[in-house]
């Protein structure tokens, strides 16, 4: 147990370190294209002769230290160096200013952040809930109609473009089940405090997006689990268990599934970022108020603080995902946990 805590601490430290490295890369990459949002804007304002706008832009430039060398900009953004207003960066909880929307980044992404987490969490749960039974069933009944049907549906899920699936589902969902179209809640609840009705509305709106975002992930995961299970099913320890007189259901779940579970758990880390970035297009099509669409606009208009924050947030999700899967693996697999009791 102490080992586990030490490992958790160690993993947390490496996570922070990785996050720091990611922040450098994000900042550098965003600043690679020539110019920034404000200098573009100033040039445009000058060309059209709007002097008062220029003054405001110039003010923002100094306010957010865009006139300083790039490395100073970086440290001020992170909050490791005092900027024009003292220490005020990511570490202090100040995410910067979105020039495009002319509002603080924190305010823009605020709700979207939690909705993103919600949508993707729902999608991940969907992936696991679908892939687990189907994958196990496909492996247990391999090369029968069950396997072929599961495989066919899976490949269909992989091959159908998400936005197409979204449109189809919206149409038929609305026609037959009276499901809402677009958005993550009924417009009436936007900006309202949480209530049961609002929760219900969000849940109803979640059905189609979850399905759309999760389908391809579930199909891929199912195929992977099936392959892992088939590998495990041919291992001698399965035969041992059978020779003991174990019944078919327990034979499947107790031994091979436990083993096939490892890669399954290890995938949590990969699943999260794939979904967040993969769902940008879907979010635009479905009109979801996640951070996906904001990332798209921010990247297009070089709105650097907004883009950087969104990228950092996705990186954080990924790192948390990998950390969770690593810790779960240690809990699940005694070979990792007790590997050193041998030595």
């Amino acid at each position, binding site marked *: 147990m102490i*080992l586990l805590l*030490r*490992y958790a601490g*160690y*993993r947390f430290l490496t996570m922070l370190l990785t996050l720091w490295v990611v922040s450098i890369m994000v900042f550098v990459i965003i600043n690679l294209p020539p110019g920034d949002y404000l200098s573009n804007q100033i040039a445009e304002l000058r060309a059209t002769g709007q002097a008062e706008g220029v003054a405001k832009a110039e003010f923002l430039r100094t306010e957010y230290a865009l006139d300083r060398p790039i490395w100073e900009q970086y440290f001020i953004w992170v909050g490791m160096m005092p900027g024009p207003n003292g220490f005020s960066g990511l570490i202090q909880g100040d995410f910067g200013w979105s020039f495009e929307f002319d509002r603080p980044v924190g305010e823009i992404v605020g709700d979207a952040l939690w909705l993103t987490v919600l949508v993707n969490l729902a999608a991940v749960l969907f992936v696991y809930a679908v892939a687990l039974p189907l994958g196990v069933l496909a492996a247990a009944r391999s090369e029968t109609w069950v396997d072929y049907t599961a495989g066919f549906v899976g490949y269909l899920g992989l091959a159908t473009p998400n936005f197409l699936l979204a449109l189809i589902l919206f149409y038929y969902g609305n026609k037959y089940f009276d499901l809402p179209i677009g958005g993550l809640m009924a417009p009436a609840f936007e900006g309202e405090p949480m209530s049961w009705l609002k929760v219900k509305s969000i849940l109803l709106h979640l059905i189609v997006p979850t399905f759309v975002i999760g389908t391809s992930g579930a199909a891929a995961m199912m195929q992977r689990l099936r392959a892992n299970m088939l590998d495990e099913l041919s*291992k*001698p*320890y399965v*035969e*041992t*268990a*059978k*020779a*003991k*007189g*174990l*019944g078919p259901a327990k034979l499947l779940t*107790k*031994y091979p599934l*436990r*083993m096939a579970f490892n890669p399954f758990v290890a995938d949590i880390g990969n699943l999260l970022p794939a979904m967040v970035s993969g769902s940008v297009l879907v979010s635009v099509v479905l009109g979801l108020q996640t951070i996906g669409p904001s990332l798209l606009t921010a990247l297009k208009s070089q709105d650097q603080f907004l883009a950087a924050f969104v990228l950092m947030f996705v990186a954080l999700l990924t790192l948390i995902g990998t950390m969770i899967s690593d810790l779960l693996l240690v809990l*699940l*697999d*005694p*070979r990792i946990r*007790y*590997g*050193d*009791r*041998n*030595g």
Partner: protein
Amino acid sequence: MTSLLDVDALTIGFGNAPPVVHDVSFSVSAGETLALVGESGSGKTLTCRTALRILPETAQIRGGSVTFHSGDGPVDLLGCHEHQMRRIRGNRIAMIFQEPMRSLSPLHRLGNQVGEVLRIHRDMGAAEAKRRVIEQFDKVGFVDPERAFSSYPFEMSGGMRQRAMIAMAMVAQPELLIADEPTTALDVTTQAQVLGLINSLQKETGMAVVLVTHDLGVVANMAQQVVVMNKGRVMEAGRAEHILAAPAHGYTAKLFAAAPMIPTVATPAPELTYDDVILDLKDVTKTYTMRASGWRAPVAITACRNVNLSVPRGKTLAVVGESGSGKTTCARVALGAERPDPGGEVLFRPDAGAPALPVHDMNNMQRTAFQRQAQMVFQDPYSSLSPRMRVLNALVEPMEIHGIGTKADRRDKAADMLKLVGLDPDMLHRYPHAFSGGQRQRLSIARALTLDPKLLICDEPTSALDVSVQDQILTLLEDIRDHANLSYLFISHDLAVVARIADEVAVMRAGVIVEEAPPDTLFYNPQHPYTQALIAAQPEPDITRPIDLDLVAKGAGAPTSWPEIFRFDGANAPDLRELEPGHKVRCHA
């Protein structure tokens, strides 16, 4: 005496192919051991698995019957319902498998896996089941049964895992135990102890045993009845003492001739001369540091310690030891694949009288030359040849790397090499999968020989092969050595294999050489308890010479359990002393 299990005219096949088990019949009585003997592909494993109906899905039983005579009347094992079968598996008939490393789930504690049998068949409470399992662990020889109960398989050695498997098979006190090559994956001293354990458990419970093996020595030590199988058919069957004393069938006689044996020696061999040494390991110690992964402290493991070995030109030096004794590390260091710890060095003398070159301190030209002159033959012929390369490509590749000859020359050389190892040059365009295990090992040898090496390092070249094939490969290696004046460094765990090919044998244990002498001297006068244990543990196909378990137990334990003058603990091993010319033993003065 009525029989417990009757197998009658059993025929099994796959697809449309001719049957792989053909008209096999035998019966076993309570308290008796029947050995199914045969080489790989003989159908012995399929036959024994039929009794539990755990055949591969594609196998079809085409005829015959398997009847189990239990307390409540005969049961037709091929026809009975799956529910009834499940009540028999693990309960009335239990099975031990070949690979204890892979036959236990790595993720569940031993106590859980063994106790499961009782939970399935005996409807027992957890506490009662635990008590019974611990009792059984004690019987199979776990020193600390409580600890074993909560251990995971990967924390145990192969021998201990096989003991756990036996405990699992025995815990419900079955009437019939089926053991499928239970000791093939184990070291010879461990094998002796596991066989002894099965014997004593059988005496105690009166169960019947069906033992599947390829080793006539194991048969002689275990069985009352023998069934010899070849290519799915029974060649010969009868009482063990008759068959082992006078095999009637030609195939049985062939198996006998091929079985490696430790010879009875009348006089020690003369000391080997070391005036022209091709390879010289001087004071080689190799310490591996297990890199701290994340939160663990680094651990230093000494794989071999102060090893001095010399290979005289044209001779064979054999290094013998169990898994983990450091023998493979020595080979890797000798080839230059690993650098020894400071203070040790390896010298290679390409020609008689030429200056010796330090293997780990060569310039590029010397290294290239060394890599041509020293070649390796690996253990597993199945995985050491690329399945995607034709034989021709595999054979000419070394010559291409070293830029030898024209394309036509290389091709001719490859054809010559195939002829040399006893294969047909027409086979050059085949892929490795078209060859049998023995043929593949011939290919590996041919590949090693294409560069005209002077030194061949053979790492257990025959341990993945059947006995009759092993015999052929050893003969081939002997022929080539004499024909091309090669020198061998031969790594093996089997003293009997080494007996015929080696000129000098070094016995390793716990990373050090414990005894070194020419094989005849070693067999005539083994001094070290571990050598004595190795010799005693070798199962002889002679029913009148059973394994002396006491002698095995004395030497096979940890170095701390050896008699006073040999005893050591960790790094403070005594020196290797020369008792008589050419015979060195590690002991205190």
